[in-house]
């Protein structure tokens, strides 16, 4: 075989491999989604969204408190993580060569590898034991800690990708460093940063272990932040580990709702990104 046709063959094989990779990734996605939908859709009715969990044997139970709880917990987590993550990302990109930036980067990567259950246990020691109280605060803290590294690193990478000319232009016009970054560079990278936040949200929305020791769970409805609060993941976990078909079906319905919530956040983020990019022109 001539050299040229060998190179061409290699190229064709490579392209084929890439296409195959996509199908290999989409196949389990389709299988899992199909499984979750087929198992969960049967139990999805209005009662599911508006009722409290019912004990075994009683029909009409729902996960109203868990849905509200998940929204509250992810909200708390984001409120804690987004400022810390974005600001750290700004520091790491603006002062990229400094030792402090290297230290922050290293810390973020390490934090990313800490298992969720260890973070849960850590927050238990710090925010639950001293007050002798499980609380939504502690749960939000645990989730927030898990979100920080993803947001920080994504922010850093994306800020670094913004062309240097934009920052230099702003500085040349007499802007302070902070104005240049927050007024020009950050908005330019905002769409990607939103993707980072959504990725972080997706990561924590499906976590059970950190909530077991912090938010605990609650069979009743509450929005008080210093009380245990229900969450979809812990409720799914409890139901899935039970013996009852009715609870199993509700667990799958809960899983479907959870995936849908994250799905919707992702769609929303993409639309917001598109709008922002259009606005900037």
């Amino acid at each position, binding site marked *: 075989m001539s050299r040229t046709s060998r190179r061409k063959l290699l190229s064709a094989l490579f392209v084929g491999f890439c296409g195959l990779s996509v199908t290999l990734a989409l196949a389990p996605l389709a299988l899992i989604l199909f499984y979750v939908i087929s198992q969960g859709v049967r139990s999805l009715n209005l009662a599911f969204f508006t009722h409290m*969990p*019912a*004990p*075994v*044997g*009683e029909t009409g139970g729902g996960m109203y408190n868990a849905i509200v709880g998940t929204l509250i917990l992810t909200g708390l987590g984001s409120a804690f993580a987004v400022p810390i993550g974005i600001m750290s990302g700004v520091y790491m990109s603006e002062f990229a060569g400094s030792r402090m930036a290297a230290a922050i980067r290293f810390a973020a990567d390490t934090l990313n590898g800490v298992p969720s259950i260890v973070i849960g246990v850590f927050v238990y020691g710090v925010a*639950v*034991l001293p007050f*002798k*109280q*499980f609380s939504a605060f502690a749960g939000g803290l645990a989730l927030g800690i898990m979100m920080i590294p993803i947001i920080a690193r994504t922010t850093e990478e994306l800020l670094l990708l913004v062309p240097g000319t934009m920052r230099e232009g702003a500085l040349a016009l007499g802007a302070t460093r902070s104005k240049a970054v927050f007024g020009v560079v950050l908005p330019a990278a905002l769409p990607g940063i939103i993707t980072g936040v959504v990725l972080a949200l997706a990561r924590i929305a499906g976590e059970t272990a950190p909530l*077991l020791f912090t938010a*605990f*769970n*609650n*069979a*009743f409805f*509450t*929005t*008080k932040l210093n*009380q*245990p609060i229900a969450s979809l993941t*812990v409720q799914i976990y*409890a139901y*899935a*580990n*039970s*013996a*009852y*078909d009715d609870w199993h079906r509700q667990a799958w319905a809960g899983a479907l709702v959870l995936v849908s919530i994250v799905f919707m956040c992702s769609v929303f983020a993409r639309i917001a990104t598109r709008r922002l990019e259009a606005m900037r022109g």
Partner: protein
Amino acid sequence: MKKTLTGIALACSVIVAAHAAQTMRINGGGATFPNPIYSKWFSEYNKLHPTVEINYQSQGSGFGIQQLTQQTVFFGASDGPMTDEQLKAAPGAIMHFPTVLGAVVPVYNLSGVTAELKFTGAVLADIYLGKITKWNDDAIAKLNAGVKLPATDITVVHRSDGSGTTYIWVDYLSKVSPEFKTKVGVKTAVNWPTGVGGKGNEGVSGLVSQTPGAIGYVELIYALQTKTSYGSVQNASGEFVKASVDAVTKAAAGAAANMPADFRVSITNAQGKGVYPVSSFTWLLLYQDAKDKTQAKTMVDFVKWALGDGQKYCSELGYAPLPPSVVKLELAALAKVKTS
């Protein structure tokens, strides 16, 4: 749109605030085994007393004991009684109150064998020790005359997570097999000589149902609900008993005669006719002298209800109710909990 939303939010917060002003919220955690009946009880109790919200979460017996010791929950629940060291580590005296009874059954997967298999404690111990490795082993065949057992390897399945179910199982095996007692011992999580671990009753049941030739142990209720076939076990009187609500209550009835004052007793391998040998109490744990006396009073009232009216919910959920002799002793002990 904005105005409507604000209006709704205000209305909600007013309702929540008004509700919160009078509600008594008590948190408890512990054993997974009684979770279904406890969730029924707390829900029914809340219907009778709408201002009392008792939030019980089943994260495990050990978790319940841990959290109770740390006082992050007001009461605990455990499938295995607290040990002396655990009691010493707690900041105050903790009392045990048996609430219901349960059992652990051997489940297996042998397609082609339609008959119900009979096991003795010694045989089960040897299987879990890895000494009996094939289904057609003489020891099993002797107990099941007339059943054609295949030459398949036995795949042993146990729990990977610490659990009260494991505690009951190894407690029984250690009583009937001295070798098991020395080699493995009794705890909620042990060093299994052989086999694979499944997470939760679900995990064990899933593994057994999908692995031909597997044997595992699950809670009776779990086996009944999932309609898994399980074998009978020989009791101390020599009878082969298949676990049932009746057989489990009988195990406790014998125990009432020699019940220790703190109710910390194991009823595995109990004496008596018709007794199922792998049975156990499950306990509710309360501080004798808790700081919050109003919560203590609420819990005492609840336990009184659970030991009385509450017991009628047992059978529909597959739990064995407590024998009246034990209930009488408990009500007397309840009086010792300080409520003022």
